[in-house]
């Protein structure tokens, strides 16, 4: 008999599924109809195809909004019968993080991506005019691909898409579990909750911005491919320029927000760690920046067209590749993950293959096209049926790319003859060189991030080939390749910096000087005069800054100079050449911003200082060089850098345990004074594990980052137990004047008292009673006196112990050695005394605000550039 489940809201799921199917069908319809509209352009059929296409896109748009609406409704109402809701939220979670729940999962993040594409698509539809059919067809195909990832249907054995409206009891991990066989399984069900790391303010704004940036790369791509499709290789650039710079602006902002999140909420102590996930979003940005600049070059001199197309093309492809890298789990695994898994990552790979292939189909005509369709089709089928067989897939990609580039070259020379040589003193030439530097930089990052993919690629035949080569000519390179077990670099930061710092230096120098070069050719005298001033100013600044910060490494000094040069060059250009005229100031402001980002990164990262140096007496030798964690007992004060740091205890608020850390500095009167307190915390999460989040004190010129790397996290019950329990006592043999230390106090035997108050200690006539006067000086500087007493009555002895509750200490005088004048004191400490410590890491980041200022300026500058271009185009249209 079927179980009648209680309290489910399956109707909403059905509605969601309906929207999913409609969004896919609408996008597909729009793609097909737009293609026909283009095919039958300027005929009587054009109008009706256009109508169908737009209707399809509207249907798609409404459905996407519908999916999002339903999913939010489910999340808000905690309908845990839905797997997605159960997996990403729970009832205890603050409401403001519902947004983060929405995009925590794969389905949600693809939905977010689809949403932005859809919204931007409407802007394109309205602004593209004669480009509408072709560009929108491409957008609609992308949307169909993305929508298919949410379908969750089986065609034969192949699973297409992952459905966000799947019921928990139907999920493969749950459907065989006994608890979902109970009709009222929902009654006590709570969700798994959101990853604590994502419960952060930055996480509500970083992903939407980043995905808007991802979406933005689609539009220049759509224009570029539409240009190939329409065989108009040149005219796509102008309408695509605002989109490109919009993408640069938003994607850049999104990446930097990710850095800000890492800095504020993650424990690694920095804003950038060359983490694969970070790299994955940086790389397309670099190529997009390069592409945007080459497009500008082309607008001036008509050259470098293929480079422009290629860069825009590769930016979009790299977005797909990056998403594949980060979402497929291939980065996380050491080697077990297989490509054969046709899950969402497999779909993403097909998606990538399709868009690499698409331009190649547009450059060919007639017979050549048919042959290529047959060849590429069979390659694809072989590749897919064998689970993305490496060499076939690689051949597919390589040949597609070759056909595209070769086709473009032929198309171009047929129309315009061979490309002209650039003048070496022209702005175009150096912008082009700059773009290539960015491209190489992007290549280096991609290649190094891709080691897991390279391992997959090497494993098997290729590895054997290298093994054979290594036998022939033994060397480290071949040996490594033959093993196909490449792991990330031992020192990842060093590896990336070694390559990226020189690139940054060149980029900085080009940015600083490029503006002064003129398009076509530049008079030498003018150039030397202008650059002379900038160089002199930058040299002076580098000298001062380098000396103050003690920057000695030659590469870093050069980077310092290059970033000053970029800032000074653009500032001078802004004020002397543009005379502060705002409409044209966008690029200069953006360049100043970028220069400041380099400068801020160099100073804050290069000169960051761990002040939590451990001063442990145990020397671990050179095998253990790391000493950046320090133990801080409660109320103990430790010197860290210029500060005295004191841990004041913890407090619990909701799921967070806050650790109050006071920073003190010696005041004028010589006494330590509190300067500020920080409350780094540990978020307790029994399901996903506890997470420590740092706290940072921001000054204008530096930040003090404080992070609890370890603390004993106890449940309230464990805590109560600990407070009442006592540790093993310690015995001390003391003479008057001797001192012993406990975990939280200094105990001095100041004297011996033989006049014991009989009433208080219950001594009788004839007793011999001696009290040890102990001065207890706490680490908080509070002093108290205690007196445990030792008695002899007849033949028996007794002790009267003293407990100092405030400090969790108990004292007992249990033996006296009159000959040696030694007093045996036994000290017991409460368990809570010892448990109460934290392990802390504290880092000073100097000048990090320069970095943030640079981010803001770059955002503003690129934003201004977009605005000016959009306005220009509308003015021209209004005139026409």
């Amino acid at each position: 008999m079927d179980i009648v489940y209680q309290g489910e809201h399956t109707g909403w799921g059905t509605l969601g599924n309906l929207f999913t199917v409609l969004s896919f069908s609408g996008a597909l319809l729009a793609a097909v109809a737009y293609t026909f509209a283009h095919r039958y352009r300027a005929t009587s059929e054009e109008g009706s195809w256009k109508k169908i296409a737009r209707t399809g896109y509207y249907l798609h748009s409404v459905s996407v909004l519908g999916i999002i609406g339903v999913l939010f409704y489910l999340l808000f109402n905690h309908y845990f019968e839905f797997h997605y809701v159960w997996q990403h939220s729970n009832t205890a979670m603050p409401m403001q993080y519902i947004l983060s729940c929405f995009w925590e999962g794969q389905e949600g993040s693809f939905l977010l991506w689809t949403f932005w594409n859809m919204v931007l698509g409407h802007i394109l539809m309205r602004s593209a005019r004669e480009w509408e059919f072709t560009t929108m067809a491409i957008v609609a195909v992308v949307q169909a691909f993305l929508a298919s990832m949410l379908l969750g249907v089986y065609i034969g054995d192949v699973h297409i898409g992952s459905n966000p409206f799947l019921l928990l009891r139907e999920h493969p991990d749950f459907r065989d579990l006994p608890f979902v066989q109970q009709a009222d399984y929902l009654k006590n069900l709570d969700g798994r909750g959101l990853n604590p790391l994502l419960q952060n303010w930055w996480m509500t704004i970083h992903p939407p911005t980043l995905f808007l940036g991802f979406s933005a790369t689609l539009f220049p791509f759509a224009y570029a491919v539409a240009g190939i499709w329409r065989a108009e290789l040149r005219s796509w650039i102008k309408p695509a320029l605002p989109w490109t710079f919009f993408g640069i602006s938003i994607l850049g902002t999104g990446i930097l927000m990710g850095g800000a999140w890492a800095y504020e909420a993650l424990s690694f102590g920095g804003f950038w760690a060359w983490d694969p996930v970070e790299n994955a979003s940086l790389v397309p940005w670099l190529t997009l920046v390069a592409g945007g600049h080459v497009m500008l070059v082309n607008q001036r001199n008509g050259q470098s067209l293929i480079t422009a197309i290629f860069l825009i093309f590769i930016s979009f492809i790299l977005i797909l590749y990056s998403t594949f890298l980060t979402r497929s789990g291939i980065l996380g695994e050491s080697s077990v993950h297989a490509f054969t898994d046709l899950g969402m990552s497999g779909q993403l790979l097909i998606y990538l293959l399709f868009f690499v292939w698409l331009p190649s189909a547009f450059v060919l005509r007639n017979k050549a096209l048919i042959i290529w369709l047959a060849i590429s089709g069979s390659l694809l089928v072989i590749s897919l049926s064998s689970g993305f067989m490496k060499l076939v897939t690689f051949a597919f990609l390589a040949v597609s790319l070759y056909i595209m580039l070769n086709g473009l070259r032929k198309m171009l020379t047929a129309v315009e003859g061979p490309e002209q040589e650039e003048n070496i003193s022209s702005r175009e030439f150096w912008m082009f060189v700059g773009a290539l530097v960015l491209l190489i930089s992007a290549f280096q990052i991609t290649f190094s991030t891709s080691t897991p993919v390279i391992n997959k690629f090497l494993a098997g035949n290729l590895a054997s080939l290298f093994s054979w080569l290594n036998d022939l000519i033994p060397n480290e390179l071949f040996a490594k390749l033959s093993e196909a077990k490449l792991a990330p670099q031992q020192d990842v930061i060093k590896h990336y910096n070694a390559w990226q710092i020189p690139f940054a230096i060149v980029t900085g120098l080009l940015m600083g000087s490029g503006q002064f070069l003129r398009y076509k050719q530049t008079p030498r005298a003018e150039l030397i005069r202008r650059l002379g001033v900038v160089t002199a100013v930058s040299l002076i600044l580098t000298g001062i800054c380098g000396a103050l910060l003690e920057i000695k490494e030659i590469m870093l000094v050069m980077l310092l100079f290059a970033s000053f040069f970029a800032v000074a060059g653009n500032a001078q250009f802004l004020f002397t050449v543009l005379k502060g005229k705002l409409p044209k100031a966008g690029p200069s402001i953006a360049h100043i911003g970028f220069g400041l980002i380099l400068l801020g990164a160099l100073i804050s990262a290069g000169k960051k200082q761990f002040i939590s140096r451990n001063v442990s007496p145990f020397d671990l030798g050179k095998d253990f060089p790391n000493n950046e964690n320090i133990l801080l007992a409660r109320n103990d004060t430790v010197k860290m850098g210029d500060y005295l740091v004191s841990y004041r205890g913890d407090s619990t608020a909701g799921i967070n345990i806050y650790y109050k850390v006071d920073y003190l500095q010696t005041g004028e009167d010589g006494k330590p004074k509190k300067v500020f307190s920080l409350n780094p915390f540990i978020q307790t999460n029994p399901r996903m594990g506890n997470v420590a989040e740092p706290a940072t004190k921001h000054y204008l010129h530096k930040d003090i980052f404080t992070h609890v790397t370890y603390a004993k996290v106890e449940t309230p019950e464990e805590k109560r137990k600990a407070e009442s329990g006592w540790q093993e006592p310690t015995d001390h043999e003391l003479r008057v004047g001797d001192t012993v230390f406990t975990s939280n106090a200094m105990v001095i035997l100041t004297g011996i008292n033989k006049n014991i108050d009989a009433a208080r200690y219950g001594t009788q006539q004839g007793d011999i009673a001696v009290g040890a006067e102990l001065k207890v000086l706490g680490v908080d500087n509070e002093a108290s006196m205690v007196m445990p007493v030792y008695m002899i009555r007849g033949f028996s002895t007794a002790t009267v112990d003293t407990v100092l509750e405030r400090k969790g200490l108990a004292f007992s005088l249990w033996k006296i050695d009159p000959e040696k004048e030694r007093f045996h004191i036994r000290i017991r400490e409460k368990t809570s005394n010892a448990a109460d410590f934290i392990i802390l890491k504290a880092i000073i980041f100097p000048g990090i605000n320069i970095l943030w200022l640079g981010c803001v300026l770059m955002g503003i500058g690129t934003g201004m550039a977009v605005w000016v271009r959009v306005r220009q185009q509308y003015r021209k249209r209004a005139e026409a």
Partner: protein
Amino acid sequence: MKKGHIVAIVIIAVAIGMIISTFLDSSTYATFEEAMEQPGKEFHVSGKLNLQKDMVYNPEQNANLFSFYLVDSEGLEKKVMFNGSKPQDFERSESVVITGKMKGDAFLADKILMKCPSKYNDGKEGLKEFKSDPSASL
């Protein structure tokens, strides 16, 4: 020769240099046995924690030393000395990847990559990395 060609040659040369340096810089996934064959050389070793044996972290003595036992994919168990503080909830991680080198009979690790038990987590969120190297992040 055209300027374009010079630029192209320079780029190709840099690219080849980059590829080779990436390969040479990269570490290797290995088992303890392989790591023992080349003591002092850096490797990545992945394995499972032995929860039966002691994990020792005595911050009162040294806050930057944590030791535990790891069983690699071949079933070989070694003591691991990690130069850093004990990661939060270390006991809960199903499998870990450690980076470092063999010395004597112990593995000296300077990085720990934990994989959390929540198999539903994907990508970055499922992994936590603990580094000890002061220069490990910008």
